[in-house]
């Protein structure tokens, strides 16, 4: 994923473009507007799922099992995306599935960002032993396959949304720590930090009042990209059977279930996969757009 591209610190902007210009640069990208609109749409779906979904996502009707989506022979009106083998409405399950996906996306990436940013700021600003310790920890962390580590964490903590969120935060903080560390190192050399130091501000005050705001743009882009990654990790854990209980509809769980009956009812597999794809793409496009809009170099 594009995250590797963020590793190089951005050259320091001598004069930060006005925030209004940044927003304008962001909205000038049609991809970003479209993707952002899609994410808003997903949030609406998640919040108003009971009102929007045509049926109860858990309601089984064994007589209406494996109905194909509209437009295919054998489809029945009222089941737009068909039904699964237990006769549950795929569309309704898809809509309710946005809830878990978005909760995990927002909470887990926020936690990962918090953890990684703090460690990255300290490592990049204080350097020395702090930096050595954090860098070593990052390296050890990266030696674990992330999927394996997340499964390990969830297996230890027990299945559930909380464990999934914890797993993502515990694993993906390194993405933030790496980038924030590099960025902080670059910013700490800048004149305004030296000036603040000469004025006698404390180290922590400088770090949070002077350095953090300048690291924030990169952080925001990274956070958005991380949301897409979190959605994927949740889906992977659901797919392996380690996310929430099977009663709650999740995209990953639907995919795992659809994989079992893929030869009888491919749509049970295809619908959540498409939703997953679109969501990841949307977060990625917004994140990429943010990066372009906030990056002083790319604005030229």
């Amino acid at each position: 994923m594009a995250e590797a591209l963020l590793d190089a610190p951005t050259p320091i902007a001598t004069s930060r473009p006005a925030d209004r210009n940044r927003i304008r640069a962001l909205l000038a990208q049609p991809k970003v507007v479209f993707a952002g609109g899609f994410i808003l749409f997903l949030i609406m779906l998640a919040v108003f799922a009971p009102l929007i979904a045509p049926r109860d996502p858990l309601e089984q009707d064994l007589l209406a099992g494996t109905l194909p989506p509209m437009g295919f022979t054998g489809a029945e009106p009222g089941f737009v995306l068909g039904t699964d083998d237990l006769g549950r409405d795929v569309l309704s399950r898809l809509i309710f599935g946005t809830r878990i996906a978005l909760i995990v996306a927002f909470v887990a990436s926020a936690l990962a960002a918090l953890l990684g940013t703090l460690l990255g700021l300290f490592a990049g600003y204080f350097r020395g032993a702090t930096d050595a310790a954090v860098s070593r920890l990052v390296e050890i962390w990266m030696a674990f396959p992330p999927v394996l580590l997340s499964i390990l964490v969830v297996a230890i903590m027990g299945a559930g949304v909380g464990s999934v969120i914890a797993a993502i935060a515990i694993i993906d903080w390194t993405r933030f720590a790496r980038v924030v560390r590099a960025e902080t190192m670059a910013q700490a050399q800048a004149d305004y930090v030296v000036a603040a130091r000469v004025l006698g501000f404390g180290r922590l005050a400088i770090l949070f009042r002077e350095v953090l705001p300048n690291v924030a743009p990169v952080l925001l882009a990274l956070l958005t990209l991380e949301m897409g990654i979190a959605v994927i990790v949740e889906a992977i854990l659901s797919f392996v059977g380690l996310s929430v209980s099977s009663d709650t509809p999740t995209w990953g769980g639907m995919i795992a279930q659809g994989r079992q009956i893929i030869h009888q009812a491919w749509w049970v597999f295809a619908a959540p996969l498409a939703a997953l794809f679109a969501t990841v793409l949307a977060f990625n496009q917004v994140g990429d757009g943010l990066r372009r809009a906030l990056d002083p170099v790319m604005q030229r």
Partner: protein
Amino acid sequence: MAIVTLFGVAVVVFLLLRVAPGDPVAMMIAPGASAHDIAELRARYGLDQPLLVQFGIWLDGILHGNFGISISLRRNVLELLTERLPATLELAIVACALAVLLGGATAIAGTLIRRTRGEAVIDAVNGLMLAVPDFVWALAFVLVLGVLWPVLPLSGRSDPSVDAALSTHFYLFESLITGRFGIARDTAAHMVMPALALALPLAAVIIRILKEALSEAMIQDYVLVARVKGMTELRLVAGEALRNAVGPTLALTGVQFTFLIGGTVIVERIFAYPGIGSMAIDAVINRDLPLIQGLVLVFGALFVLINLAIDAGVAALNPRLRHG
């Protein structure tokens, strides 16, 4: 440095598993076993010792080539690893090769047709590719190439008869070397979807970074001089610019190669491909401590080796570093 990282990995995984609630022995005993039986089992796997002693025993064993006995499979862990690792290595090597070929060719083609509509198409498609992770690619392949238009086998590594016919666990490489192309073809067919799913995210990053490095190189004076010598455009890109673009690209994409190794875990699971990745998921779900420890150590070693190889590659590709 590499050793420190590996040791850190060992410590982290060891602690993670020991602080976890739940008893690994609980799931391997038959219902109605006596407390005495349980205690005996715990003693057999060393689980009744203090933490530090357990770690010491395990570390000592590893240094002597003894990774312990898998609890769930009841087999020697080292044996299991040597059986399964070749499958994952073959898959990862093929995926890397695919990614480098695909990414390299696309970046070169994009540079050849720069400032045309074709380049815009490449950039747009690559923008999509950068967003899609291996998990989604793998599932999409299952749906499209496995079910809707079933041209490729959906799971496994080869036809079951193959196992007996070969003497190593490197099915593809061995069959290619010994000229048994029927087996090679069968193994390769099983490998296409998982390898592509692993390769595409890496290829996307290679395209992005290599293309940027190439267009940077193409405006250098030495390319102008070569152009005046009458070289073709292809030779300017692939002969003059490429050799100066590959080193920086490798340095910037290095971390992505390690992501590919991590990706084998879920991709192998999706295609029921019998490598160490799919075994790792089962090991975690079964709380098979010795097996998990062995597997994580192998993944850690792969990570360290890849990083060393990339550092060596970057140095070898830079004439300034090559000549000290």
